[in-house]
């Protein structure tokens, strides 16, 4: 279950240095009913999290410029402990689940399987553990 009992906002904050690809992902997600903002680095992500309205989900690379994914997540969860975190990374083996300031994040390995991300977003927090386990085994 989601850590928060209130309905989750459909606002997503997407943090990735590859801006062109992030924009394309944002377009796909927008078509599927999400409201997506894209930032390129950790500083921009923290700046965005500082102001309302708070996104319901943070999708971030593990290694981003100026602050890594876990620091962004910790900051976001200090403002809203119910913030859902999805890590989208090329380095799944570097992830330390306990450093995200709350429940372990869901992990998706690049290249992203869009259908799996969509399932995860629609499934709320229920599918996170399974996705995480699958991603950490390094198997597609």
């Amino acid at each position, binding site marked *: 279950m989601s850590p928060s009992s209130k309905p989750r906002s459909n606002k997503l904050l997407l943090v990735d240095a590859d801006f062109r*690809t992030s924009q*394309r992902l944002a377009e796909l997600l927008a078509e599927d009913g999400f409201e997506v903002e894209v930032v390129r680095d950790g500083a921009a992500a923290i700046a965005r999290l500082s102001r309302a309205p708070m996104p319901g989900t943070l999708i971030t690379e593990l290694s981003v410029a100026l602050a890594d994914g876990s620091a962004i997540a910790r900051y976001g969860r200090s403002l809203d402990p119910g913030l859902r975190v999805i890590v989208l990374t*090329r*380095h799944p083996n570097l992830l330390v689940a306990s450093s995200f300031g709350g429940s372990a994040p869901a992990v998706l*390995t*690049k*290249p992203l399987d*869009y259908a799996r991300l969509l399932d995860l977003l629609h499934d709320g927090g229920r599918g996170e553990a399974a996705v995480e386990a699958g991603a950490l085994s*390094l198997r*597609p």
Partner: protein
Amino acid sequence: MPTETRFQEIKRYVRLDEHDAELLREFGGRIAAELPRIAMQFYDRIREHEDAHAVLNGEEQIQRLQRSLVAWLSRVLGGKYDERYHEQTSVIGRVHVRIGLPQRYMLTAMALIRVELLRLADQLLGAQAGPTREAIVRILDLELAVMLEAYKDSFVERIEHAVKQERRALGTALAQAEQRYVSAVDLAGVIIVGLDRQGSVQLFNREAERVTSYARDEVLGRSFVEVLGLEENGHFRAKLANALAGQASNVELESSLRTRAGKLRDVVWSLSTNAESRDDSVVLLATGRDVTDERANAERSRQNERLAAIGTLAAGLAHEIRNPLNGAQLHVSFLERAIKRKSNDPDMLEATRVVGDEIKRLANLVTEFLDFARPKPPELKPTSLVKAMEHACGLVAETAKAANVELTCDVPSSDVEFPADPGKLTQVLLNLLNNAVEATGATGGGSVRLRGRRGPRQVFIDVEDNGPGLPGPDAPIFDAFYSTKEGGTGLGLAISHRIITDHRGTIDVSSQPGKTSFHIALPLDQSAGALV
């Protein structure tokens, strides 16, 4: 009464008569089909004992000896025990002496054969087995008696040789000095051989005995170069001749030497002339260091370092590849959706599906790279050699059949359990077997053999094929990204090498056109220390 030959005397002593001969002939005819099995069991047992195994020299020799054993058993049960028979048995005895087979192994091995033959006699003849059993016991005793004569002959010869040497040594004061030399150097950890002016061995220390397996009295007085089979390319001989003639005082050189069992060892020699020598007893000291294991270990260590460095590079590269793959994958998802929305053109949808599949294939390849670069340690558990081999053969059987390659799974006569990660071991065997099938399949009508045997402290697994062989003896086949196959990633053998070394085992290859063999050795006991 005519003079009795030694053989007739032994026959009379064990009371082997014509009736026994008849019984043995009949029994031999009935169990002929069982003989190859007995021979295989016999050599599988020998492999389990270190000293006995040490006199053997590779799988080919064992196969040959198994065939000889079948021939010997056929002769023993042939029913014709004449002087020719005696001579043939004597020859076998002399071979045992020559290869240095300890007598105790001959006696215990004969017991193994005796038990098998008696068991077969009981099975076939039941309550009537008595006379045949007695005949078996008599003929095997006769065999042992004749073979032991060869040991006696050798012993007498060695004693006579030693006595001759002793007399010669006692003849001069320098010989006594030499004796003191021997005592001083005997416990040194290097090979020390003293030579006279003719290049004959006059001093042979304990380390020399250990490395060569020759006893001191066997080599004293014999030519240094010939008895140790030092390389014949003339280079060693020439330098040795110079040193013996006093034309060079300190010479460093390398040579391979042949041990008593015929194995080659690499030795670095230092030849020092003995200026103090006033007669012919010792004019030159050859000090040698056996560097065979050291070099093999250094080569393995270099190989591991290379693999580790390449592994780190591969891991970094693989991770970086995931970013552009991610961009490509997302754009393909976007395109697919756009096509569905606008034209739903099946050709365009098929094209995007193909691109998507190719991206997934690349992603899988990246995952394989990471498996290689960041492998998980093996999860060891007791593993059956026979089951592991049969499983691997079963998985390759269809491929081999399709390629018209004859696949043989040559399992040991009794199973052995050893600590291994069964999944990873299967990965290695599949890799080697598939490579072998591909190599032989290309030429047509090839054959591939997977052989497993137990050694004293290891399990040996060989994969042999009769394909065209490797490009050259120095081909870096265990290096990552080295491949001779079109479309090969060059990771299969590198991963196999890593898996075997992670099991604290070794993997080597020998290759020539028409025969390539991969040899794997895995420890029976993981706590006994690494093999490498």
